[in-house]
């Protein structure tokens, strides 16, 4: 297997060109703060950003990219007047379809709403559905809890969200991780995202590189509460 480790966030995002389509992971938790900050420093513009989480833009640093005009198109689940919005379940299923070689699928969600206008409606077994199409990307930026050097990933709790799915939907996936272990040390039965979907993995440094000094963890509180045995 190939070693996917790179040393810095800046190196990891250095290849992202102007005009790229970039998926940015997380929702509530599971947001790749360090990679977003590195992408900000890197300077790429005219980006198409696909992020479920962009409702909380001010908190994710995607907002910084946007306010500087670096985002040409934002595809996100929540509309804000400028973007039409996508039902969240439809959005995540579209990303899943992108990584599953499914170009389009039908969903019941949104029928009878403004978001259904102009969409293909079709009945199956007496119920009406909308046609929705897949989303893919050139790059995905995601965090993980633990990686091995081959890029096999594990997520902790709701850090998972859309992240393993984006890894499958993007051509190249760049991962920031809290812990790194040697290749082969993770239990094969309990890997959330195989390394074949990962291009590069970077360990988050002890002093986070967070944009504008943003702390990775909330100061003064433990970063972990253990609510069950982990694995065996």
């Amino acid at each position, binding site marked *: 297997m190939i070693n996917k480790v790179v040393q810095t966030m800046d190196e990891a995002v250095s290849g992202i060109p102007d005009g790229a389509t970039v998926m940015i992971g997380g*929702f*509530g*938790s*599971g947001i790749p703060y360090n990679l977003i900050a590195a992408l900000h420093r890197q300077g790429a513009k005219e980006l198409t950003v696909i992020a*479920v989480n962009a*409702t*909380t833009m001010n*908190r994710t640093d995607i907002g910084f990219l946007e306010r500087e005009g670096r985002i040409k198109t934002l595809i996100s*689940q*929540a*509309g*804000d*007047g400028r973007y*039409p*919005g*996508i*039902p*969240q*379940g*439809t*959005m*995540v*299923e579209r*990303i*899943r379809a992108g990584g599953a070689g499914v170009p389009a699928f039908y*969903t*019941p*969600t*949104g*029928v*009878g*709403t*403004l*978001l259904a206008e102009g969409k293909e409606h079709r009945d199956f077994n007496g119920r009406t559905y909308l046609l929705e199409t897949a989303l893919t990307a050139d790059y995905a930026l995601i965090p993980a*809890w633990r990686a091995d050097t081959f890029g096999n990933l594990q*997520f*902790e*709790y*709701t*850090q*998972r*969200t*859309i*992240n*393993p*799915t984006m890894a499958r939907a993007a051509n190249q996936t760049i991962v920031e991780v809290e812990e790194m272990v040697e290749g082969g040390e993770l239990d094969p039965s309990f890997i*959330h995202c195989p390394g074949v979907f990962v291009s590069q993995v970077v360990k988050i440094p002890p002093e986070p590189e967070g944009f504008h000094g943003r702390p*990775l*963890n*909330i100061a003064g*509180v*433990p*970063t*972990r*509460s253990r*609510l*069950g045995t982990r694995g065996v």
Partner: protein
Amino acid sequence: MTTEAEKPKLAREEILLRTILDFQEGWLVNLGSGLPSYIANYCSPERNVVFHAENGVVGMGRMATREEVNINLTNALAQHILLVPGASIIDHVDSFALVRSGRLSATVMGAYHVASNRDFANVSRDPNVGGSGGGAMDMARNAQRVFIVMEHVSSEGQPKLLKRCTLPLTCPGVVTRVFTDLGVFDFGEDCFVIKEIAPGWTVDEVRALSEGDIVAAPDLKEIDLKALHEAIASDG
């Protein structure tokens, strides 16, 4: 809109407590943003109701205290939460697969408007600009029951129980029951049926704060706040 200011309505907490009483053992319930997200704080695990958060939690517990925070454990609103014993984490896609396939016994969410034809609106306050409401459309379209939890009138004093919604719909024709600070409402033929009423209020007084038709249920009863607090307290 006469006696409104003078009479006590249900407190927000009491609306939640009343909603919890409708949950049955074994139910899987999604809690929406705002008021409903606090329901897990009040509902004891002994009720055997499993709470779902659409970011991928099956078995959501109460909000975390500052000492309990784990940055990798939140609900869909990024509020730090705990899990109940037996909880499991699924990914975001799987979480909405669960929703779309009709596994939710109920979804509980707020609304700007609920209409007597069971339509409701909570995605946008602008009549001309729609929105997705996050996962609200998914939950509303696909859950077995749609429970709306809200104050009876808007902060501007406007009625929210309407004949027809004038804001962009979240989903047409799906609301099962509405819990407000004035009562509990089911639906009849293009009307609301008030099943329970806030203590001290009359149906006509509720009608005055509503636009949609309100019919009194034959077995209309007053909400017993004392019993409500006791029922929930016994959970703990």
